[in-house]
């Protein structure tokens, strides 16, 4: 029981990270109907920029709490801004020229962009795994049990609390942006009918760019969280995380923000529980099979609307 609770906490943490990435997939797919295959690599770029800024400001666990908080806000801001520039540029250079081309064309350029980003980071930052000393340590014991097998403690670390809090806050903020602001209205309008939206005076291109920027910014947050949580990154983390986050987006119902979050949590939990009870080696197989199963049996996802095929 304690073991299960502990895995539940770990799963929710991991799921939060996936959820943050999944929002980028879901928003882009909702608005232009393409899988932004390079989104996982934007997440990876975000993690690397966070690492660079953390090293530059010399952040370490020994700093006082106030300094750590200030520095992390700085790191977050830098990572979000620069990743957004990456997201914007890639939309502008690789996807916009292909708008109106046949459906699979942007998917193929997206694969190209993904290869470019991975290799660019590999060349500029080195192929080796980058370790980072833990910055946020400590935690709280929730449950404790002592029996003949020894002591078993269920812990939630400060890092996990931070990740879950940041995710909840960002989710709320972004849901409000989509629901209340004129930008969000424009996005929803483009999602429903791009041509009609442009007739009504919405700058569709700019709205799509903004969507990419928002997605990239959230992916950068996820990148920072991943970096702080696991402490190791390399240029390849984006691929697997990207596929899993995409699974999350589909599972939750593509185009739906709460769906992406829910999907992220489910995928995070499945992966963690699978690793805990079955086998660690096959945890990616579990996630990938989940993707296939969801797409086959529940293509509209948990919270999505069924897609109507128009002739």
């Amino acid at each position, binding site marked *: 029981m304690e073991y299960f609770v502990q895995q539940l906490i770990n799963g929710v943490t991991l799921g939060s990270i996936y959820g943050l990435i999944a929002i980028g997939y879901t928003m882009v797919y909702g608005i232009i109907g393409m899988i932004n295959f390079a989104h996982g690599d934007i997440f990876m770029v975000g993690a690397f920029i966070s690492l*660079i800024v953390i*090293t530059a400001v010399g952040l370490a666990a020994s700093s006082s709490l106030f300094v750590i908080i200030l520095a992390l806000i700085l790191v977050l801001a830098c990572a979000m801004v620069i990743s957004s520039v990456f997201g914007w540029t890639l939309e502008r250079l690789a996807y916009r020229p292909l708008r109106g081309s046949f459906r699979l064309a942007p*998917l193929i*350029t997206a694969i190209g962009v993904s*290869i470019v980003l991975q290799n660019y980071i590999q060349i*500029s930052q080195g192929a080796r795994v*980058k370790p980072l000393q833990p910055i946020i340590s400590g935690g709280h014991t929730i449950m404790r049990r002592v029996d003949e097998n020894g002591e078993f403690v269920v812990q939630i670390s400060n890092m996990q609390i931070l990740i879950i809090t940041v995710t909840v806050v960002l989710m709320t903020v972004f849901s409000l942006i989509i629901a209340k602001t004129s930008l969000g209205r424009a996005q929803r309008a483009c999602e429903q009918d791009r041509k009609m939206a442009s007739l009504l005076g919405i700058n569709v291109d700019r709205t799509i760019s903004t969507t990419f920027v928002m997605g990239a910014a959230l992916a950068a947050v996820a990148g920072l969280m991943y970096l702080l949580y696991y402490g190791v990154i390399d240029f390849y983390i984006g691929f697997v995380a990207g596929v899993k986050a995409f699974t999350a987006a589909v599972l939750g119902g593509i185009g739906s923000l709460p769906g992406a979050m829910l999907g992220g949590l489910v995928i995070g939990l499945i992966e963690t529980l699978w690793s805990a009870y079955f086998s660690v080696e096959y945890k990616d197989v579990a996630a990938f099979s989940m993707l296939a199963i969801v*797409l086959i049996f529940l293509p509209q996802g948990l919270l999505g609307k069924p897609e109507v095929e128009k002739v």
Partner: protein
Amino acid sequence: MAEATQTGAAAGGGLDLSEIGKDLAITALLGAALFGSTIAFKTETATGGLSLVLRFESAFFVIAAVVVGRLILLLTVWRRPTGGDRTFVPQALQLRYADFLAKTGKAFVPIVLLFAVVFPFLPFTDRYLLDLGILILTYVMLGWGLNIVVGLAGLLDLGYVAFYAVGAYSYALLAQYFGLSFWICLPLAGILAAFWGIILGFPVLRLRGDYLAIVTLAFGEIIRIVLLNWYNFTGGPDGISGIPRPSFFGIPFKRGEGGFADFFGLDYSSIHRIIFLYFLILILALITNFVTIRLRRLPIGRAWEALREDEIACRSLGLNTTSIKLTAFATGAMFAGFAGSFFATRQGFISPESFTFIESALILAIVVLGGMGSQIGVVIASVAMIGGFEIFREAEQYRMLIFGLAMVMIMIWRPRGLIATREPSIFLKEKKAVSADMVAQGEGH
């Protein structure tokens, strides 16, 4: 940047210095954010944590190169006024180009074929070139196989390499456990790969284009992870070594009594085996091509192409889309299986390393670059891609970067590939090439 370019061009294509200046300033700023962040600062593992290496100079050069590149583009290519027509080439010239292609196309194929046949005996051909030729032909074969799935049936398969892996492992394992020879394993590998194509294809084939792509990618990864972790059976990351070399229909390539050289009264040379491998893959590839061309004329091939153009129309005409898709998947997978067992016997060693997603992307890039559905396009694209890889062998690090960039730029420059015109399968009285604008490609709803 977008607005700046558009207004600059709308001004009649004249040089608007302030617009260009603004554009370049934005480019420089973007460059500073993109490259200043990741090139100027590099994290290095040092004692007691990470340290930062500063490389402002290289970052500056990259940014400068981007700005200058954009300036050149602004002054040359992008200066023409943007009308409704975005194509560079006038219509008449395009038609003449298509005409020229059609004429040379007739002679082109036999010449390429002849060259491929005499290539091993040309005076300048050495071991290195032969190996390169084998590699290119392997990709031609894989490209042709994938062309059935992507080019004809319009199903984007991102996990094609999985079937290549199935073929390679089938031969390696059958040879290892049962001592079967290459010639028995070759068809078995094809059948097994086709079988897996059906198993994996069956559940996913009702998905739409891009969902299908992602699921095939997932399946490709699953197969690779299983191969990597099933240590007892597949050898895991160590792979399988000592895979038997192929024999000349039972006559081994070895020195001395009973060998190939001895049997034909030649002097022993290790190049014989390479030449044999070369012809083996050439014949396998040509079989793939032949089967594809013939299948295109059969009802099933017609159905594939109909499916690519419009699935809903296909269904309303009473075609069973599931079985059409499955046959395309299985046929493509079968050829990948053949290629895989050839790969295993050529290398003598296989490991999951050889079957990563990048490999799938490379094969897909060949098909797309060649022009989906075009058989000769695949050949040209394979030569360009694999040859290009060889040219950039010196710049090992930058190879994949260039590959990715090329993939993006080709898609933007020619979304329909090098050979964009298409030979119609059925025609009335006169055979005309269908221009690229007339065909919907790879919709795969």
